[in-house]
């Protein structure tokens, strides 16, 4: 992977997506709980002020209001930081949105440790666990800004609630407009036969870098972009487990109940193979620079390479048995 790839936060892709939707569909409305610029809801507000609702610092009310708009034929995108959406308003999302299977789209920006200096209270590290536990909920974490735009457009057409996990930090924007995006269908980013990494968000790019490093060592790493964590693409996961015999999961999120758990749930009943789970290990975030934090929390390409080395030893010992 080239280090010259243009950097752009996934929240910007979301901003572009809602502006596009605003033009295409007059039923699309946007709600914001005060963090209008930070979530890029402002981009929609500037173009379509009549369809933008400022809800103040009241996340529970915002999601309830979004439910009412959805009940009356609108397609709302309700925007705030991921911690406040998934945590503070969890019961409102559960009862007022998921239980009624309403077309409410939740834009949770500032997902992950790369929020940086704001620290633990503002770094969403548990939202995928919280959201994926809800019946009817679809959970998407785009790998870059371009994919975030495609995911936003797809979410508007999707029946039922969607949680979009978006990031604040500029990260490589490496997919192009022709890249496929279908909710629930993972993207094979790079084929490989020795082992597979299943990941989402900007760790897809880290995984591609890890694949380059491993390639030089003669190890072939398959990279799967599991942009939709729920509903999970079991077919792609099973195929990878069968063909490569070992799986790494990598997420900028707690390992408790997140991507690693979701993949293991699928593997345990389908094709149990050795797994290494990379992610935030049962701890809160801290202030710091995004890239330094990725290192401290062991979420870089190098950490994926280390996991691959461990996993290959385990895989061989399984095969020898």
């Amino acid at each position: 992977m080239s280090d010259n790839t243009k950097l752009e936060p996934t929240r910007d892709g979301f901003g572009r997506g809602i502006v596009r939707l605003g033009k295409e569909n007059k039923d699309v409305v946007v709600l914001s709980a005060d963090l209008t610029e930070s979530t890029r809801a402002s981009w929609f507000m500037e173009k379509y002020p009549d369809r933008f609702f400022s809800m103040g610092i009241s996340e529970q009310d915002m999601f309830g209001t979004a439910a009412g708009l959805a009940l009356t034929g609108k397609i709302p995108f309700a925007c705030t930081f991921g911690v406040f959406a998934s945590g503070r308003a969890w019961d409102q999302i559960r009862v007022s949105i998921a239980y009624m299977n309403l077309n409410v789209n939740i834009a949770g920006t500032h997902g992950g440790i790369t929020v940086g200096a704001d620290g633990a209270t503002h770094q969403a590290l548990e939202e995928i666990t919280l959201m994926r536990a809800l019946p009817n909920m679809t959970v998407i974490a785009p790998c870059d800004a371009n994919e975030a735009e495609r995911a936003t457009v797809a979410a508007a057409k999707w029946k039922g609630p969607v949680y979009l996990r978006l990031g604040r930090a500029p990260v490589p924007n490496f997919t192009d407009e022709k890249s496929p995006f279908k909710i629930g269908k993972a993207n094979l980013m790079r084929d490989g036969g020795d082992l597979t990494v299943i990941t989402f968000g900007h760790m897809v790019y880290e995984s591609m870098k890890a694949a380059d490093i491993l390639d030089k060592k003669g190890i072939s790493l398959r990279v799967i972009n599991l942009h939709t964590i729920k509903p999970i693409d079991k077919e792609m996961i099973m195929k990878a487990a069968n063909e490569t015999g070992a799986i790494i999961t990598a997420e900028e999120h707690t390992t408790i109940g997140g991507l690693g758990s979701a993949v293991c749930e699928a593997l345990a009943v389908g094709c149990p193979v050795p797994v290494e789970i990379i992610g935030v290990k049962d701890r809160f975030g801290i202030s710091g620079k995004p890239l330094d934090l990725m290192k401290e929390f062991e979420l870089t390409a190098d950490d994926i390479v280390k996991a691959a080395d461990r996993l290959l030893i385990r895989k061989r010992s399984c095969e020898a048995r």
Partner: protein
Amino acid sequence: MKNRPDIEVLKAKAKSIRRDILTMLESAGSGHPGGSLSMVEILLVLYDYSLRHNPKEPSWPKRDRFILSKGHGCPALYAILADCGYFSKDELSTLRKQGSRLQGHPQMGLPGVEISSGSLGQGLSISDGIALALKMDKIPARVYCMMGDGETQEGQVWEAALSAAHYKLDNVCAIIDYNKLQIDGFVCDVKNIEPLDDKWRAFGWNVIEADGHNIAALEDAFDAAEACKGKPSIIIAHTVKGKGVSFMENKCEWHGVAPKKDELEKALKELE
């Protein structure tokens, strides 16, 4: 002024609805009689007088919406909806039973039930959202949201109160079933919500107080709410928990306990 239904007919109907509620609850073996009985007249006046609705077309886009935020009061709503013809009265006996559309707390899908509810404090936000969408679509329908008094201890209610005033949602009419009791005891002892009228007024609402069991007073209140423009209205309806059954009235013990067979018989006699 709209034609008002015959008060004696509504009074007789109130008794019949109360009988249905208690019969359903006894058959279910659990549920919430107190807060169901306290809102019977409010629901009757809404469904037989104020609401523009059509039981034959529950999703008519121009209908007025009734949002039951205090979901535990659903036996009263189910009884009224069946009385209006949204579904058969025979279905009432399935309340809280496995496979029934009459869930212990309301679930969308049963004709006439606009939202799923049961976790308190959420209905007013949803009502605001519906009201905003109706205004966007220039549909002159109204949204009525019934809350419990204890329910206003939920912070979200006040977030939604700010929103409705901020967006001048004069198509929203909240109703508080102010029966003064909640599970743990008297509202004023559990956590006082007074002065309730001043609070809503300070939040920018048109506040109307009424005797929640007086049919003519409720009709006046709903008319006054509809006539008020530029801000949302709230009707603080003073009611009696367990209304109509002497041994249930003003007893918080009857918040969430169904009557037993002999208690039902005694209650039905009082409601003849």
